[in-house]
């Protein structure tokens, strides 16, 4: 009989060791896959790092991926902290981008000082709304949020595709389905060579650390996340907390969409997320739902993505390789979580009874 026994307690040290070991095992497994494909694993790993950190250019490209990824993971963290399984970061990203783009396309003549803050606010509202709808459905009708947040992704992407092919199509580009480019005042200026999205992201991370760690609201979320019953017993307004946390979480994802539309795409398209909304869930999880760690983990993922784009060109390895590496790392790290919290027990069936009574006696 094989069973998992919950460990009595987990020391921090043990958790870190296991995380570390699991990453090493994951890298070794990836190395085997790379070798199977006929490449030298050491050379591939070296080039992944050289291609993402080895030059100023690649470092910048890495940061450009890290900005949206980190904000999206921050949004996911706010929801997962209270056990609201939000896999709709992708949709909230697009909802924020859509709200901001509406203003950008509607008011191209406004000054940047007026337009950019409005777009910022609109993106929070858009992303927040897109996350609050599933939260409200969960609260009022007890609908499973995992499914609803997932489905909301497809709704908003199809809405944007419809706008792009229809009402918002740029009439000056001879029938081709693209939206008009934003005016200069709707484009985030760059700070120190990289668009100012990084300043926004850092500011929001700092705010999130303070809100989650230092405020009553953050404390209430922590209690609610670890035990909803306790939260209710303590007299917290759990419904209100749920709505607030999800709206804030969705808002962060929306800001990522605004930054991407404004600074990178200079327009809105229905294919601009590169699947980051889903990668962000993995980032949030690997970071243990802690914002500061999320910054670090999203940097690691950005290194991996940029590095794999690099080896695609330098070694001719298909980009799908990065998905395989990501998948293997996730598998092992999340798998190790199980072993950190549970003990694997293999016994003969007749001993099971004894095992259960032993555990009961502890």
């Amino acid at each position: 009989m094989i069973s998992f026994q919950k460990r009595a307690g987990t020391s921090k040290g043990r958790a870190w060791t296991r995380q570390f070991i699991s990453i090493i095992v994951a890298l070794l497994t990836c190395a085997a896959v790379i070798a199977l494909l006929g490449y030298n694993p050491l050379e591939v790993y070296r080039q992944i790092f050289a291609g993402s950190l080895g030059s100023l250019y690649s470092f910048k490209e890495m940061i450009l991926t890290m900005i949206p990824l980190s904000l999206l993971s921050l949004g996911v963290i706010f929801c997962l902290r209270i056990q609201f399984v939000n896999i709709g970061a992708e949709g909230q990203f697009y909802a924020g981008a859509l709200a901001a783009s509406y203003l950008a396309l509607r008011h191209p003549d406004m000054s940047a000082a007026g337009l950019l803050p409005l777009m910022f606010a609109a993106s929070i509202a858009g992303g927040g709304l897109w996350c609050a709808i599933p939260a409200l459905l969960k609260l009022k009708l007890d609908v499973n949020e995992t499914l609803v947040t997932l489905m909301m992704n497809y709704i908003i992407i199809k809405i944007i595709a419809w706008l792009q092919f229809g009402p918002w199509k740029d009439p000056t580009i001879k029938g081709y389905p693209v939206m008009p480019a934003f005016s200069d005042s709707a484009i985030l200026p760059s700070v120190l060579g990289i668009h100012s999205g990084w300043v926004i992201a850092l500011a929001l991370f700092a705010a999130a650390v303070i809100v989650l760690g230092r405020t009553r609201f953050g404390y209430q979320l922590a209690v609610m996340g670890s035990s909803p019953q306790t939260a209710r017993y303590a007299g917290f307004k759990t419904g209100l907390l749920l709505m607030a946390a999800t709206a804030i979480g969705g808002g962060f994802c929306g800001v990522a969409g605004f930054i991407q539309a404004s600074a990178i795409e200079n327009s809105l398209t229905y294919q601009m997320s590169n699947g980051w909304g889903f990668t962000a869930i993995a980032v949030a999880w690997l970071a243990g739902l802690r914002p500061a760690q999320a910054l670090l983990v999203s940097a690691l993922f950005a290194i991996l993505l940029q590095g794999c784009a690099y080896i695609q060109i330098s070694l001719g390895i298909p980009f799908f390789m990065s998905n395989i590496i990501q998948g293997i790392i996730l598998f092992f790290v999340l798998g190790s979580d199980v072993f950190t919290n549970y003990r694997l027990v293999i016994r003969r069936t007749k001993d099971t009874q004894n095992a259960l009574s032993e555990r009961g006696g502890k």
Partner: protein
Amino acid sequence: MRKDIFVSFLSVIISTVLIFGALGELKAANAELKPIAKEDIKAAFIYGSPVGKEGYAFAHDKGRRALEQLGYKATALEGIPETTQFEKSVRDLIEQGYNVIYATSFGYGRYVERLADQYPNVYFNHATGDVTKTNLATYMGRLYQSQYLAGIAAALKTKSDKIGYVVSFPIPEVVSQVNAFTLGARSVNPKAVVEVKWTNSWYDPVAESGAGLELVNTGSDVIMAYLDTMSAQIAAAEKGAFAIGCSSSGAEALPKAYLTAPIFDWAKFYTADIERVVKGTWKGEFQFFGLESGVVEIDALTDNNADSAREAVQKAHDAIASGLLDVFAGEIKDNAGKVRVEAGRSLTDEQILTLDWFVEGVVGSIK
């Protein structure tokens, strides 16, 4: 507390690196186009769809492989969407020393123009594009001439006088293909009509199969698609329809249904173009190649064709290549009955590249 320190520590690191980044920006980009020695050429091809075994990207990739055989370094990135993902991929390529870029899709235009300004010493080539700069050339084939020939083969084959045509977007390039195909068809069979179905994508095998089946169900017995795959034709062939391929041969995929295809021989263009880069005679100009150049062609007609097809197609081919026959010579009416090109006149290149109406005989409309 430790988290706060961690965050501020991280931001200090990031800002420091960024400051150095800004300093790096200051070195002015004053480079200009210079001839590149053969061994220093690093050419990169960017395709909007996977290369696969047939279709548009496959046809370009044959050209790339021809360069490799001649000893040039030529790589390809496939399936790159028409977003800033394209721009980033090209920046990555240039950063790794690539100096000749072939962007093969119309939708890359906005980004190619920006990149050409940013990297004045890199050779940019944009297939089907409409903007040129000193370091940005556009190139395309007068594939509509081959379409005219394919239309002849299709119209001689159809029994229902109805030909189905699956297309992506209502852009002038696509409209000109459909128009020429229809004009060719009606030159030998005035009763033939061409019904159009849109998929709103260059690469969407599921939508393409659906469109192909729908056309067969509404009476078409020859199916054509101006897309990256032959999914529409393959689905239709299962229902007994005949197929015209596009961009590359479909003889292997559909031995019983395949008639012919307007095809590209991009190797002819790419090998000549890269030589111009080596010799320093390359120019950022607009290039438009017809049947006479061999860059566009019609695939050898299979035995599935009507008996008279081979002769009729050859006759038209020679007439077009020698300049005797102009595909878009008047009188041409649009499909609402209005005369668009008077007798004795014909469309100019500029008019062909801005077409936004279908000729008489096309069933369908430009949205």
